[in-house]
């Protein structure tokens, strides 16, 4: 199982701060994204504004994810 964390506006849209999904070993973020929007369709319109992290580091959509990895869905940061 991959743990997907959601923050800020993305957590609001999904209505949850954490999702567990089972993915094939080596699945990319591109392949995982539809699994998330299937469950939480309100996330879909945010796609272009989001960044992703795998195990606490920014990752490109081509990055692959292994079981037990932690994925994070990051809306535009607004610290400061």
């Amino acid at each position, binding site marked *: 199982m991959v743990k997907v964390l959601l923050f800020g506006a993305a957590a609001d849209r999904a209505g949850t701060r954490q999702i567990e999904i089972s993915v094939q070993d080596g699945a990319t973020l591109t392949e995982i994204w539809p699994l998330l929007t299937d469950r939480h369709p309100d996330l879909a319109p945010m796609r272009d504004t989001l960044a992703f992290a795998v195990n*606490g580091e920014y990752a490109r959509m081509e990055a692959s994810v292994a079981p037990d990895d932690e994925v994070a869905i990051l809306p535009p940061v607004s*610290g400061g």
Partner: protein
Amino acid sequence: MFAIVEEPIDFGALISAAQRPDCGAISTFLGTTRIDESSGASVEYLEYEAYRPMADRKLEEIGEEIQDRWDVRHVSIIHRLGRVDPGEPSVAIVAASPRRGPAFEASRYAIERIKEIVPIWKREVWSDGYVWVGSQVGTRSQ
């Protein structure tokens, strides 16, 4: 020092830690909660959340970037989480250098980088709901 804290920032301690006999300049930046009342309604406070420990590590990375670019002998970056009331600091940056140019540039760089790469989010809490800054997602009806 690089830290994410849940309580008010002890700015005096940050300044004391930055005073060094080999440095002639300390530049600091405080980001404070600003209330824009121009729209009639008004923000009551800001609320911050972070993805930790990634956010902590990103603060340290910014410190390393600064040390790579400038002769800065001391850097502190502290970001606060949770509720921050109007006029209160949400972020404090302190950079000490032998000379003032690098000190100013480093503290400016730090706040720009925080706004680019550190996974922290704030929402404006109004009397009638909230809005995530930068995403325009929230519970306010309008």
